């Protein structure tokens, strides 16, 4: 039980830090980029 739980805790941590968080970060940043791009398509290029 305890060895098993330790393994599961480590795997969960590794998945969060190495997979989930980076993927979410990239998705959020690219999503933000797309939103800004779409707003530029509608409202014209920045500064106009």
């Amino acid at each position, binding site marked *: 039980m*305890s060895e098993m*739980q*330790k393994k*599961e*805790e*480590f*795997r*969960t*941590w590794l998945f*969060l*830090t*190495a997979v989930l*968080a*980076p993927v979410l*970060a*990239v998705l959020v*940043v*690219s999503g*933000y*980029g*797309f939103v*800004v*791009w779409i707003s*530029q398509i509608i409202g*014209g*290029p*920045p*500064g*106009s």
Partner: protein
Amino acid sequence: MRDFLRRYWRTLTRPSAYYSLGFLTIGGFVAGVLFWGAFNTAMEFTNTEQFCIACHEMRDNVYQEIQPTIHFTNRSGVRAKCSDCHVPKDWTHKMARKMQASKEVWGWIFGTISTREKFLAKRRELAEREWVRMQANDSLECRNCHEFGSMDFTRQSKRAAQAHSTSLQSGEKTCIDCHKGIAHRLPDMAKQ
């Protein structure tokens, strides 16, 4: 599968029994630092000339054209690379431009400008887009290097000094209004 998910969900939502708060916090912090470093490295790589001219569309057309211009070869060896003029420096606009590049990936996959002929046919549209962009942001990418306040009109040609001291100074015109086709050849402007 449901059992598997439930088990890991429980591990996720409960305090760790085997790993200290110190390890988890510092470990997460270090992973964050590594991620941000990798992210920026990748982002900077997409700003390099080497990256731009990896595709023949850029290498065989616009890259060939800039080489004899003053922005590539000159007496002092200071020069502009693709991203200096075509990628905004401001973070938000840079991210937007990087996402906009997905359209360029699309064009690359479907060969939108895969031949010289296709490129020449499309070049007016591509150039107009950059001109509109620079007219809107008051030629920001020019001004990243060229500072109006440091221009010495006495060292400019009469015609340049005349234009810069009037229309440019008053803000009525911006760099790109006159300086089109200086780094790449002009499109065929005759046809509509």
